[in-house]
């Protein structure tokens, strides 16, 4: 059993008591220490700026051409915080409880409570940075509601909340770059972690413009590299979003937790053809006013305006009267799949459902609806050529977020000493299903208010050591192994493009390890992914050279890692013989088709430990202790 190092004491006092006891690093010693942070999204940029403000030297890396382009920028709907500005009974406890319940009781109480506790500080910090949140006429901050909750605690900036929060963190980071406290490396991809005596002491990064492999040494390494939704090929993630940093960490001994917990977001624009490169999300906030329905008639070929009210099935309102269209994402997605699989889907493919704003426009007027969702309606119109003011949108679920990730303890440290993981790339806060507007909250909580303190538990023990230097032989050795795999990719000269292999992986994963899973399919998929891995290494074709901009080479490395991670996701889904949150095993459901948890046997976090490339990974467990809430069957009826 893994030890999460959760502090003793009352849940509500754990963090404040612990925080005041974390060993400090003196200002003089902070100046001697260097921390490498990979990724400049909400978690990475906020951690880098905060730690630089505290006095540490930070080396920050991103693969994009600017830190402002990290994928957090695409988050639309909002960020949760337990401010209770709306006087609707919200509290830290309620945000904590909603998150634990929303995650189907597969997350750690202490981490989630801490997250809820610091959520208010995030809003304060962002406002002070000049983030232009939506406001009421009186000048106070506005809120809206999101899925899975009955209060309005979501702060937002139109449909561009992620962009505005990221630009806030980016501006704080830019300030530290100007001061020389952060050294910024754009167009650099971390290609491996360097361990010295079992501790993370630096990285090998590839300069994506010159192709040079660089050695960077540090006292600790922080991964803020996001999720692995692109294992599925089609997802709402950015094209460059990848799992390579997390996967290299796994191969170097960091355990990987709950890999099978992947969130499928219910409201995305449906697939239109086989050239499709990515999927576009329509913010969950749309479910505040949009009503989801399909025809009551199977295979109904009529256009939506030809289907009279009495022949429409508002299936979420029917099945979940208490939460209606605002049920959590996993439930909304499965319900859409269920209707479509049963033959009631809309559109020529039958693989979509309607999201209808006619009632909202009637009740509130077109102008109000435009103020709330104007940019989302425009986006829908640009992509589909259809006008959602006059016709209902058509939507279908798509892969969006991964709750699984590197296992971390309460300090956010992985099982490799000195290696930390924050934001989406760790597993810690969302259990088996994340609630809407909580990803931004977690990224910024980890980066601004948690890691900068908890990393002290490790760095305070490093003050007597000589500054780490990249002249240590471990750096050259790691660099050579990276070089070998790059050479292998470039010299393979097979027949299959990286893209085509990635697509094959996506198909296997979506069909067998997506919204609905069963033992038989998972077993077949495990064999299929194994075979795909062989095909990749025997037949991949990577054009171009090493010492230039080579986008195919970048993709090839990432897809090789996605294939291995896909294999682990399937293994994890096979072992977890229960349904919880986003993980729905067909063998385990209630009579009404809802997820059926098995708390007796699966009340744990899975943590997979690599045994090298030739052996199967070993499953370790962290038992979940519920001291405050009592796990029950989630009900949104």
């Amino acid at each position, binding site marked *: 059993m893994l030890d999460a190092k959760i502090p003793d004491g009352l849940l509500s006092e754990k963090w404040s008591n612990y925080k005041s006891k974390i060993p400090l690093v003196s200002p003089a010693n902070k100046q001697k220490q260097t921390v490498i942070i990979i990724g400049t999204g909400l978690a990475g940029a906020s951690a880098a700026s905060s730690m630089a403000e505290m006095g540490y030297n930070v080396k920050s890396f991103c693969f994009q051409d600017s830190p402002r382009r990290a*994928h957090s920028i695409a988050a639309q709907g909002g960020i949760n915080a337990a401010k209770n500005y709306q006087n609707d009974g919200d509290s830290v406890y309620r945000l904590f409880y909603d998150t634990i319940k929303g995650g189907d009781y597969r997350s750690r109480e202490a981490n989630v409570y801490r997250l809820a506790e610091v959520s208010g500080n995030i809003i304060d910090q962002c*406002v002070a940075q*000049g983030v232009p949140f939506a406001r009421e006429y009186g000048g106070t901050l506005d809120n809206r509601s999101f899925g899975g909750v009955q209060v309005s605690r979501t702060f937002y900036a139109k449909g561009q909340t992620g*962009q505005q929060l990221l630009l806030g963190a*980016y501006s704080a980071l830019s300030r530290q770059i100007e001061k020389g406290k952060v050294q910024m490396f754009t167009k650099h991809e971390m290609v491996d972690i360097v361990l010295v005596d079992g501790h993370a002491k630096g990285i090998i990064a590839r300069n994506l413009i010159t192709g040079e492999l660089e050695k960077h040494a540090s006292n600790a390494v922080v991964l803020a590299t996001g999720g692995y939704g692109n294992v599925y090929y089609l997802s709402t993630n950015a094209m460059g979003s990848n799992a390579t940093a997390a996967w290299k960490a796994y191969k170097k001994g960091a355990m990987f937790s709950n890999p099978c917990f992947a969130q499928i977001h219910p409201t995305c624009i449906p697939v239109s053809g086989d050239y499709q490169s990515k999927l576009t999300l329509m913010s969950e906030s749309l479910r505040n006013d949009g009503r989801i329905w399909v025809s009551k008639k199977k295979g109904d070929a009529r256009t939506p305006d030809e289907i009279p009210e009495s022949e429409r099935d508002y299936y979420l309102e029917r099945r979940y009267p208490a939460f209606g269209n605002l049920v959590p994402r996993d439930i909304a997605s499965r319900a859409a799949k269920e209707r479509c699989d049963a033959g009631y889907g809309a559109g020529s493919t039958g693989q979509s459902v309607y999201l209808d704003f006619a009632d909202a426009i009637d009740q509130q007027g077109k102008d109000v609806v435009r103020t709330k969702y104007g940019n989302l309606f425009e986006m829908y119109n*640009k992509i589909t050529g259809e006008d959602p003011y006059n016709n209902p949108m058509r939507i279908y679920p798509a892969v969006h977020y991964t709750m699984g990730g590197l296992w971390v303890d309460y300090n956010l440290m992985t099982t490799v000493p000195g290696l930390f993981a924050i934001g989406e790339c760790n597993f810690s806060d969302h259990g088996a299903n994340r609630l809407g507007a909580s990803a931004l909250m977690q990224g910024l909580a980890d980066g601004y208010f948690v890691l900068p303190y908890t990393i002290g538990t490790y760095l305070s023990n490093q003050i007597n050591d000589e500054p780490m230097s990249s002249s240590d032989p471990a750096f050259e050795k790691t660099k050579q192994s990276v070089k070998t795999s790059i050479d292998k990719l470039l010299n393979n000269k097979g027949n299959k493009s990286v893209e085509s292999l990635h697509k094959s992986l996506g198909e296997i994963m979506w069909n067998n390890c997506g919204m609905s899973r069963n033992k038989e399919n998972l077993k077949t998929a495990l064999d299929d992914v194994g075979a795909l891995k062989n095909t990749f290494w025997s037949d991949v074709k990577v054009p171009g050279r090493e010492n230039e901009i080579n986008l195919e080479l970048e993709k090839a490395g990432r897809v090789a890692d996605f294939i291995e991670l896909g294999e682990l996701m399937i293994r994890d889904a096979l072992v977890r013989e229960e349904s919880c949150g986003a993980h729905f095993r067909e063998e385990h459901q209630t009579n009404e088709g809802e997820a059926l948890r098995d708390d007796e046997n699966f009340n744990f976090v899975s943590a997979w430990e690599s045994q090298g490339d030739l052996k199967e990974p070993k499953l370790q467990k962290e038992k979940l202790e519920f001291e405050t809430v009592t796990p029950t069957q989630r009900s949104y009826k």
Partner: protein
Amino acid sequence: MNTINITLKVWRQRATGSKGAFETYEMENINSHMSFLELLDVLNERLIKDDKDPIAFEHDCREGICGSCAMSINGEAHGPVKATTACQLHMFNFKDGDTITAEPWRAESFPILKDLVTDRSSFDRIIQAGGYISVNTGSAPDGNAIPIAQDIAQHAFDAAACIGCGACVSTCKNSSANLFVSAKIAQFSSLPQGEPEQRKRVLKMVHQMDEEGFGHCTNTGACEATCPKEISTGYIEEMNREYIKASLK
């Protein structure tokens, strides 16, 4: 399903400083729901199959928000559709038989790295020069402590909507970065939080903009017309006002 045939002319350039030229590709049976970048994906798959070098281009979110994609299509930054990034430009905006050209941003401060990829780090350095409010983590007052009128918050938001793609610079005949810089300055100058550093900010950011070699603004308004986020040139007036105020102090 509607399909079209297209002649595509793409700027190919090995590296900074090497000689570039347009290359022509015939694209047949293109699904009109495909995006322009997906058209480049399809072409790249073909080039790889034919042992040719695929086209390098920047792209990431493909949702029009990250600001990565940057190319002129038929001579217009991000192509012919108003308020749309290249990644959200779909082929139903073109006709069967059209010839479409794609080339990188053209500006001295954005050197070409390869094909359609340019180096836009000059934008980051302008932000580093002062595009922030100095507030350390943990030192912020309660979010509702400073009420901000809805219209002012909206004004700041509209300025902050800039995605930093560089279309304004590429379109400007003088390669001016005034729209980009003024939007950031206006976002902060309209908010009470930005006030204390306002003078220093405008002087430093404008100075850095000049250092990077961006040209002068001659008020043609081409930048606003091409901006995928429709950032208003009104912010340039605000910046000029702030700059004069700051210079006279």
